[in-house]
């Protein structure tokens, strides 16, 4: 069961002037290392985790990633909501406009739709948790790319918050991995 809170995890205030960022932000919505992929990856992997620590952590981080999806979508929406077809075209979103006008869509900046092949699940908890640690680093690097592409203060602020979250998640997944490995080692003794 999930419940919704009618607020963002962190305030998002974007200026109107950097509309081309809307296209680039799509990488963190429906791209291979984006927030949607992260949420689905963790919430799908949790079922076969052997320890309660890992089950809890994947549930909680997977849920937090859904809040990040909402922050990214809010940024894209704020940037594009009043854009004319011509402004969409200038921002590189002409093909988006042709198909769906100003609607959002879980795709990468090139319009390639999000796909389940962006995630992995192998039941082997060491494999899955290591995959997650790599995924967090890839997302951190993507946020650094995005931060370096804009000087909009509000956007940089929100992107820096999201970048920090990737660092914390990487740390927690590392701890969950150590606990899983200790659990596996203890099982071999008895």
């Amino acid at each position: 069961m999930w419940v919704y809170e009618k607020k963002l995890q962190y305030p998002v205030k974007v200026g109107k002037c950097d509309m081309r960022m809307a296209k680039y932000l799509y990488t963190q919505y429906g791209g291979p290392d984006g927030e949607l992929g992260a949420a689905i990856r963790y919430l799908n992997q949790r079922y076969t985790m052997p320890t309660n620590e890992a089950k809890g952590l994947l549930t909680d981080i997977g849920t937090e990633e859904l809040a990040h999806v909402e922050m990214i979508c809010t940024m894209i929406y704020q940037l594009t909501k009043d854009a004319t077809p011509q402004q969409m075209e200038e921002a590189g979103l002409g093909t988006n406009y042709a198909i769906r006008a100003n609607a959002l869509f879980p795709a990468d900046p090139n319009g390639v739709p999000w796909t389940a092949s962006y995630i992995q699940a192998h039941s082997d908890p060491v494999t899955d948790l290591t995959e997650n640690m790599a995924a967090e680093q890839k997302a951190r690097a993507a946020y650094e790319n995005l931060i370096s592409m804009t000087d909009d203060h509000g956007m940089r602020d929100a992107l820096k918050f999201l970048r920090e979250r990737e660092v914390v998640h990487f740390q927690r997944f590392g701890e969950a991995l150590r606990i899983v490995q200790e659990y596996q080692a203890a099982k071999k003794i008895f």
Partner: protein
Amino acid sequence: MNDKEILLRSIQEVEFALLELNLYLDTHRYDRLALMEYNYYAQNLMMLKYNFDMKYGPLMNFGFSPSVDGWRWIEGPWPWE
């Protein structure tokens, strides 16, 4: 910032502390100090949310917030607006 934004901002801050403590406790379940902090902020959050719900309408759906003054859940602005 207006009064609503100030209250919402404090809810976001306290929830952030709780989320951080929650993830930390997931992998450090026997840390008593972190647990004390978690319970302290949880109490804090309950009061802040109650204040918000009463003044500005429900923050949560499905009965997790009361809706005393008519059905205010569907009133805008929504978080992305």
